[in-house]
């Protein structure tokens, strides 16, 4: 899946990149956490979900994308208090008023809540990030679905 026809670059890597990252993350998970009893499935599920997102963020371009950067940041923050501050190109500032008050602001607000790192973006940048995010998400879903299908008995 390469970049589309639009001049804005929103290409994502192929499926195997996502698969590789995901499996790597899963194996890390396995070595970190010994098998726990079934009552702790919720915990496991959460960990796996987080692993999925983190692997997706890594696969999708590491720190090149704002949403992936913020996702990795959030994940790291939850793990340990010491977050290595990566070099940021620009600080997070309140976008100036005239950049955030178009006609479609209420809907954009919801989008900001959904897409990681959305609170700090202009609306146009938000849409671009959303497009890339959607592509990566669908790729990740495909990978996970393939994994589940291929590995389930019967």
């Amino acid at each position, binding site marked *: 899946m390469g970049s*589309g026809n*639009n001049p*804005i670059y*929103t290409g994502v890597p192929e499926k195997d990149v996502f698969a590789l990252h995901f*499996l790597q993350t*899963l*194996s890390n998970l*396995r*070595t970190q956490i010994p*098998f726990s009893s*079934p009552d702790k*499935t919720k915990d*496991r*599920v959460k960990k*796996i*979900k987080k*692993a*999925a*997102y983190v692997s997706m963020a890594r696969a999708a371009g590491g720190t090149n994308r704002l949403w992936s950067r913020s996702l990795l940041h959030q994940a790291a923050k939850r793990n340990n208090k010491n977050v290595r501050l990566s070099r940021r190109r620009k600080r997070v500032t309140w976008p100036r008023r*005239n*950049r955030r008050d*178009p*006609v*479609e602001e209420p*809907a*954009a607000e*919801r*989008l900001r809540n*959904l*897409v990681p790192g959305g609170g700090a973006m202009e*609306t*146009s940048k938000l*849409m*671009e990030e*959303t*497009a890339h*995010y*959607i*592509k990566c*998400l*669908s790729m*990740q*879903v495909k990978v*996970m*679905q393939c*994994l*589940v299908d291929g*590995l*389930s*008995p*019967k």
Partner: protein
Amino acid sequence: MNSSLLTPSSSSSSPHHLQSPATFDHDDFLQNFFSSAPWPSSALDDDAPPPTSDSSLAGFHHHDVDSRNQITMIPLSHHNPNDAVDVNAIYSGFSAGSLPFHFPQGSGGGVMKQSHTQTQSQATASTTTGGTAATPQTKPKVRARRGQATDPHSIAERLRRERIAERMKSLQELVPNGNKTDKASMLDEIIDYVKFLQLQVKVLSMSRLGGAASVSSQISEDAGGSNENTSGENQTTAKMTEHQVAKLMEEDMGSAMQYLQGKGLCLMPISLATTISTATCPSRNPLISAVKEAGVPLSPNAATTPVVNVKGASVVTVKDASSVSKP
């Protein structure tokens, strides 16, 4: 001449269909037009012969875009209502871009004035096309050019809106059901789609990879696990697997194979298994002999490989070369 001339020259395709008159010849008209050198509003009245005036304006547009930014379409205001339709077509041709037009099809002069102010407030792409053509005027005074309507703020605003619209269009292709023309509903669709995808990730991480605890998965965890397990433990778990496999084999061989595969095990004749195990690691013999059926773990060697066991469905990554190949 053919009808294609009515499409604006600056933009490749205008989504709004122009009801263009089929033919016209613009040569006569152009001569008339260009003969009158400056383009004061009042002068144009007399020059334009009424029957060819609509088509002439289209031809006029072509030259206009390149040369003149400030052209007044005075004749428009004096059209009779019958021509209002064509006038709208031409007018939309002038605005070179994908602006939604709401042209009331009423009488001439008032109509043009309304639409003029409307498009002036809406014009976005016109900045890129270099200030297309004519603003119909009823006053002899020259208005501000379209595309530089009032001040830098509105230009920036327009640019920004244009950028947003462009990205919305690309998002539209990604999202299923992206055929809504309304921006608000399109945004709703996008939001719903993102939520749906996130939910899918959550469900998938729950379903097989995360969640449903089952005895077999517990077995697979231990059986396929690292080889630090005591042989006794291995024996019991192997026996349970054995029973399971036997049960499955009664119904259907394929399902049994898949079950084994799910555990990262494969089926092989005992002789082969013993040969392999004795060849690689003699200490494994007790384990092998305990297994009546030939359900051999895929990493028979003592010195191997981290095995990734995802609960419920084992993913065995076998890295040693001497292992049995997976079925």
